[in-house]
């Protein structure tokens, strides 16, 4: 009959070992290998020699690749900003919706999130291409306008030139916003929901208009949630692969596309490893920044 402490020990080990072992073997170890590879170089078609060289990192910091990094950060940042602007009124509307409507509205916002990323991005192709829905509608409007002009006796408008909406940066940003919007709305909603409504009423009562109340009271108090939403949107957008791959043109490459190329086509695995790690550092930096900004602040937003 095992003693109490022996029993407890056994239980602890049974609980701790599987997850920890898994994480170490099937997550940390692979990442460690990537890290090791980033210091290696190709010796032959399949052999890689881990020589401790920094050449890969040096190459990664060249203007060409640095430029792509910068572009990725810019695109991810722009996406986040647009998601914030579009998503904030949506979150506001859901928070102030009646009890009856709220779960449905949350469901409606979340449903696209559950849909496959590939499918969502693909759906946009049909919308944005030169023979896509947008151009289709614009062409129809153009033709109607032309017809109206002839009615009045003026020269008809020339041929409709379809807008180039696909395979460029516009499509990539649009696609990223489309895909990541639900990521932004949920944390915003959570933060606004926790806010004490009587604070808004007090602000109105003291003479502030709605806009002023928004910026003086709501935003400062919902800030932790807003920052969460920003991080949850920025990080995946930074490492996005599918969207720039399917919707972007030759000059809309983001960092994930470059990494993929190293592994699938260029066969330069050490360089790809170095780029991967730089991406990870950028991600961690963003998260550390967020932790820095919200350190030491207790959860405000409750009518004290």
């Amino acid at each position: 009959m095992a003693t109490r402490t022996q029993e407890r020990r056994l239980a602890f080990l049974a609980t701790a070992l599987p997850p920890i072992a898994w994480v170490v073997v099937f997550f940390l170890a692979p990442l460690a290998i990537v890290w090791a590879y980033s210091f290696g170089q190709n010796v032959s078609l399949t052999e890689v020699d881990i020589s401790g060289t920094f050449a890969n990192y040096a190459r990664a910091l060249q203007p060409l690749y640095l430029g792509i990094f910068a572009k990725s950060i810019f695109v991810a940042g722009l996406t986040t900003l647009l998601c914030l602007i579009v998503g904030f009124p949506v979150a506001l509307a859901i928070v102030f919706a009646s009890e009856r409507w709220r779960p449905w509205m949350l469901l409606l916002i979340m449903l696209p999130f559950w849909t496959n990323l590939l499918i969502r991005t693909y759906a946009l192709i049909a919308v944005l291409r030169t023979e896509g829905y947008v151009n289709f509608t614009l062409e129809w409007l153009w033709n109607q306008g032309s017809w109206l002009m002839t009615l009045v006796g003026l020269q008809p408008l020339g041929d409709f030139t379809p807008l180039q909406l696909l395979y460029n940066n516009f499509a990539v940003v649009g696609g990223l916003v489309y895909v990541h919007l639900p990521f932004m709305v949920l944390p915003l909603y959570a933060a606004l929901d926790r806010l004490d409504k009587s604070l808004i009423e007090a602000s109105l009562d003291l003479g502030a208009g709605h806009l002023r109340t928004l910026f003086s009271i709501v935003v400062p108090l919902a800030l932790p949630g807003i920052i969460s939403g920003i991080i949850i949107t920025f990080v995946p957008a930074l490492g996005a692969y599918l969207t720039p791959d399917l919707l972007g043109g030759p000059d809309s490459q983001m960092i994930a596309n470059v990494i993929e190329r190293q592994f699938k086509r260029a066969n330069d695995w050490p360089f790809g490893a170095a780029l991967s790690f730089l991406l990870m550092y950028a991600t961690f930096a963003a998260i550390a920044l967020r932790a820095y900004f919200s350190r030491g602040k207790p959860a405000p937003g409750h009518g004290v």
Partner: protein
Amino acid sequence: MATRRAPLEYNRMWQIRAWLFAVFFFLYAPLVALIVFSFNDSKRITVWRGFTFRYYEKLFNNDSLLLAFANSLTIAFMATLISLVIGALAAVLLWRYRFTGRTAVEGTFMLPLVVPEICMGVAMLLFFTRVLPWPNYLVWPLNLGSIIIAHVSFCFPFVALVVGARLASFNKEQEEAARDLGANDWQAFRDVLLPHLRPALIAGALLAFTLSLDDFVITFFTSGPDTVTFPVKVYSMLRFSVTPEVNAASTMLILLTIVLMALMMVLQSRAQKKAGG
């Protein structure tokens, strides 16, 4: 009689309503169009010609696609099972025990959520080709093992989060009462804690299943020519040509996702009621 808008009734401002409507429209219109055009009797996907099930027939006769779908389901099923165990254990570990290095362990468990998907994909690729080469003469389903392992690695933290949230609402005294009445650790766990966790386990399982089914990037890096999954296959179809067949395949996947989501909500609310909230 309609009343004037009260100051906090933001939802009655026409600007907010218009915005909401516009957002929901742009969110859903492309998807709805995609589904509609899967029935288009034409090779093109933007000009409506007629209604047909032709492309669905094509789909169901496309052997490689069906195989890919079977692979996806198998992987998702196995990955979910393993993720449930690992994730639940991880959650219980953090909730119940205090030990040195706890914060480090907690951070490590959450790391897969933070690491960009492409980095994980690359890591898995390197691991399974250079360190633990997965023999490709293995018979199905073992040949899918590398993909399953990769999926577990990024799914289990979600399960751990969901189960962890549920654990927080558990009254420890229940377990102590069971022990007081003679149960040992394992029995107390099985008879008291597990039932309470059931809603979270169901939610976690469905979450892991959906994530695994939908995954593209990580699978893209770990799959080979004969271990293709559904999203990877659709991707290659996409790159090849854009016909309503792709629409049909996508529609099937959307349907599956909705069914799973609905199932999760129903099961969860039922289990919630039974487990007493």
